[in-house]
């Protein structure tokens, strides 16, 4: 799915707010700076939540798509 290389994937499909962000934040803790994590979520709040999380933490959204109720993000650790 991702067009950039990813180091880790978080499948957050079916998880309610705030679990997609919580799982992602947990996953990012284990990554080195510059590594990427791919997240697949179905929570409709995740688009705004990931934007806010990225802005606050400095972890950059490098890819973002939506397809049939699934939201897909690739984030690069600051």
């Amino acid at each position, binding site marked *: 799915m991702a067009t950039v290389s990813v180091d880790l994937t978080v499948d957050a499909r*079916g998880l309610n707010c705030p679990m997609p*962000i919580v799982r992602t*934040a947990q996953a990012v803790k284990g990554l080195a700076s510059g590594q990427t994590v791919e997240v697949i979520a179905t929570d409709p709040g995740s688009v705004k939540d990931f934007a806010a*999380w990225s802005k*606050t*933490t400095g972890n950059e959204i490098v890819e973002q798509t939506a397809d049939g109720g699934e939201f897909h993000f690739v984030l690069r650790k600051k």
Partner: protein
Amino acid sequence: MNAMDEPLNLVLFSGTDDKLQAAAVLAAGAAALGKPVNVFLQYWALDAFSKGKIDGDHGLAPEAGAEGRAAVDALTKAGQASWAETLRQAKELGSVDIQACSLSMDLLHLEPEDLDPLVDGTEGVTAFYLNAGEGQVVFI
């Protein structure tokens, strides 16, 4: 000082599962952003954190009604994490300190060993305000 450095201070009073869930979501979201969280447990919220009761059914706020009960049950059935599990994950992720109100400990005849390990300690309201600093205080 960055606004994200100031703690979020949640005062939990109500002991029903819906209000505790709403509080746990706020705590976990703040923890994911790297914002410190202080949780102060009073009255019926403290009772819900006692050992053996924490994973039980604590009912819902009166406004939930039968439809609210059904909606909450549907989310639980779909795999939504309980408020206690959400708080456990929030504590793993960030700085989340959960303190029991000492007055409520007396009221409910609770000793520190009666509380679930999620609770970090017991303090009075003065210590709560000191730790709250300039951060927002939210009463639930």
